[in-house]
């Protein structure tokens, strides 16, 4: 039986502390936004979860490439573990976005480019899981997942561009663009600190959860092997 690595326990602790700090920052350090009030605070974790969502999908495409080039099982493991995590995080991002949108845009859902792209990305990775489920042979499963992850990740920017050309009301907080839709605001110093701290915290959280997920997968495969040896 494989022991839990000491560094993983340490990382668990760090993640917990960071997360607590992020929550405190969001509620007690960051000032209340003038026009939107308390609901704006969802923004910090909303963007952070969406960030983890995109990060994981990027990692999965990268791991897909690594797997195809090296055929090492570990890349496949990291790849689909990060899709699993990001799938959940992206879902949280969509839900927290809805919570914010209800008072600000007066609707739970609009066909705004970011929202729509988020929904399409969730569908792509839903299809990714269905593909994995439909293949029994592990190497074939890994190869197909790698190819599909690469395709999926590359299609996201184009999906975004084409939906953006179609319509947009999502507020643009960072970077260029004209915030034609409602809900745009500019960040003050403490807001920026809170924001980037949340991004950092969630990135650490992602690595921590990913590590746990990979470890779980390894243990599971070890268990299957033992079971097979016992029965045969």
């Amino acid at each position, binding site marked *: 039986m494989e022991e839990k690595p000491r560094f993983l326990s340490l990382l668990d602790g760090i993640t917990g502390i960071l997360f607590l700090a992020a929550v405190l920052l969001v509620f007690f350090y960051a000032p209340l936004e003038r026009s939107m009030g308390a609901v704006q605070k969802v923004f910090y974790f909303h963007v952070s979860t969406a960030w983890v969502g995109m990060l994981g999908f990027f990692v999965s495409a990268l791991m897909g490439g690594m797997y195809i080039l090296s055929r090492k099982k570990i890349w496949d493991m990291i790849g689909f573990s990060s899709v699993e995590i990001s799938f959940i995080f992206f879902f949280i991002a969509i839900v927290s976005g809805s919570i914010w949108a209800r008072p600000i845009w007066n609707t739970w859902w609009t066909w705004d480019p970011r929202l729509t792209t988020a929904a399409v990305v969730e569908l792509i990775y839903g299809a990714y899981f269905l593909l994995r489920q439909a293949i*029994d*042979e*592990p190497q074939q499963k890994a190869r197909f997942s790698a190819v599909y992850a690469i395709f999926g990740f590359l299609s996201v920017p184009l999906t975004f561009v084409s939906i953006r050309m179609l319509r947009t009301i999502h507020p643009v907080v960072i970077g260029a663009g004209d915030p034609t839709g409602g809900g745009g605001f500019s960040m003050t110093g403490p807001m920026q600190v809170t924001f980037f701290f949340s991004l950092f915290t969630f990135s650490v959280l992602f690595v921590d959860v990913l590590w746990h997920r990979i470890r779980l997968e390894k243990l599971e*495969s070890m268990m*299957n*092997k033992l079971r*097979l040896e016992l029965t045969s």
Partner: protein
Amino acid sequence: MIRVRNLRKRFGHKRVLSGLDFQVEKGELVALLGPNGSGKTTLLRILSSLSRPDGGEVLVGGYQLPQEADWVRERLGFVSHQPLLYGDLTAEENLWFYGRLYNVSDYRQRAANVLDMVGLQRCGADLVRTFSRGMVQRLALGRSLLHEPQILLFDEPHTGLDQDSVRMLNDVLLHMSEQGRIVVVTSHDLAQVANLASRFDVLSRGKIVASVKEEKIDLDRLLMFYREAVRLRGGERL
């Protein structure tokens, strides 16, 4: 020649080949025997470049697999337990198709010759869909010979064939072997290969467990040898 050392292959957690060693010299006609699930098909698929080995060394005709697959493919003919033929093309069209892919010069003439060789000269313009099992198998044999390969691999070629077709098949195989080509045939029916092969290897649980070299071997003797070999490895059913 074919040289395989410490070949390993698994599907998921199931180990199919576990450190298999196998060698065939030029001009040998080897029958690969073994119960179902012993790894015969997997071994042939790896030798034919269709499947990738997990570990070990595989040399076919002096080329390494999977790195030098295209060189192996040029020199190798394979009859699988599936026909590898298109039902909606005629026999001729199937051979033309593969002939062009194999870059056979004058592929039409070659296709006619091959049809002649397998006794289908009259059915060249018929759709493969309308063929009987025996005719399909003959055409599959013809397909594998199109590019005059030096190494021939046959996976259970005798299954479902009538007496005539078996005789034709064995004649072709012997003829190929006499020309100095390497021929490997798998079978679970010893009677079909007893007076065909010059060497008999028994595969069990992913390894070659026994080998006997004897031409025109007596069927009873072969049967005894086979049972002994399989029994020693843990007694699987025939």
